[in-house]
């Protein structure tokens, strides 16, 4: 798991009203270019989705998703090329199976399914990308903050919950 570095943040603390924080993993050849396509067309969408690019959606390890949630993401998106159109032949076939399996596991852990969105976006589908960003941001906004780190703190992760032991 990634180490988190202690970082001095000058005036970066976000405003008090909560805004959904959504991480999206995009494959370079289709979905990332699709997102660029939305930009070239000057489509407008909310700023809540931050994009992380990888070369192929097949690179997206389910651990990226759980790490994102564990670090405080309110939603996660995984976008790849349409089936049959993968630049690397069949990377998205693996994504196509991994993500639903991961989603089932997350839902069994009490996560609302709308927080984890897995979709296919081609390089020409700027409209679809913009629509997805809007829809998912709204969905997550309605669900409210997930705040899994708070959950972890409640679980005593890293900080413990204890009293002093006997006999000292």
């Amino acid at each position, binding site marked *: 798991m990634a180490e988190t570095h202690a970082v001095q943040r000058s005036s970066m603390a976000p405003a008090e009203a909560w805004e959904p924080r959504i991480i999206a993993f995009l494959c370079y050849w289709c979905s990332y270019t699709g997102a660029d396509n939305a930009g070239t067309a000057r489509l407008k969408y909310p700023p809540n989705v931050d994009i992380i690019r990888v070369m192929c959606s097949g690179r997206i390890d389910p651990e990226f998703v759980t790490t994102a949630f564990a670090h405080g993401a309110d939603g996660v998106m995984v976008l790849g090329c349409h089936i049959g159109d993968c630049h690397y032949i069949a990377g998205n076939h693996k994504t196509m199976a991994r993500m639903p399996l991961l989603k089932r*596991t997350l839902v069994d852990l009490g996560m609302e399914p709308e927080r984890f969105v897995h979709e296919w976006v081609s390089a020409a589908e700027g409209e679809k990308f913009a629509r997805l960003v809007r829809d998912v941001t709204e969905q997550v906004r309605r669900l409210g903050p997930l705040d*899994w780190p708070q959950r972890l703190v409640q679980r005593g992760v890293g900080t413990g919950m204890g009293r002093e032991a006997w006999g000292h």
Partner: protein
Amino acid sequence: MNANTESMARTGKLKIGMYWAASCGGCDISLLEIGPHILELAAAADVVLWPCAADFKYRDVAAYPDQYIDLCFFNGGVRNSEQEEIARLLRRKSKTLVAYGACATDGGIPALANTTTVESIFAASYLDSPSLDNPARVQPQPITACEFGELQIPHFYRHVLRLADIVEVDYQIPGCPPQAERVWTAILALVAGELPARNRAVKVACTDKAVCDECPREKRKVRIKEFRRPHQALAEPGWCLLEQGFICMGPATRSGCGALCINANLPCRGCYGPSGAVTDQGVAMIGALGSILDASTEERARELIDQIVDPVGTFYRFTMASSDLRGSR
């Protein structure tokens, strides 16, 4: 100091301890599996704490000087305040503290309780189970007034924790239970000073590789066409169980057990926790499993996935407490 501790201080033998927290007792028994080596251990070491086997009091332990215990094994997860207190106590009183077994290392089976609530567990245990006779719906309370005064029992925590979540751990011996041969080798190494007394939760009595390394079955590099559970079909001998559709956690599980379960024709259940550089065993398996399904359409992928009965219980059976998400929302 009492008579016991006085004598031990004089003998100069190795001091070892074994404590059980949220545990089934299997780890304590597993230590006995070292068989004839137990005599060697007895000759070289004094047991200064072993609630399963001998009657030591907590106040005895509290009275030990700090770092008195040379080698202390702690098995079981931490689920209540008593277990946490003793964990902290033993950390102070031990030179080397070892998380022993899956529960102390990764949460083990008890950590599956993190997928539900305390209320739900208490209801099942004390209120709703069909075999209960509890018309007054009595549940345990931390403090109960009675004719003798106030009875206190440990505070039941809302979550199961690993030992490393509470205190600094020097070594971890994974397994449910850990296999005796390797445990003995680890004990010897620790005692001989081949491993430093203080360390950073290093896993010992195991390898860095996954069970596939020790597994006698062969891979045919085929994709999974259908999932089956062990009671539903006979496995073909010699061929990888996972490829046959029995969910074997072997690829995502640390080896050291000698592939015991597989040698008994049952798929590995993952009790040694994650292998290699992995911290979350469940997503490691999900990533691997999703990669080898025989599915070229989304529909088929979903059909196969729907055949998996209990993903959380399957992929996190022993490691919920060391996963990224730790439990349910």
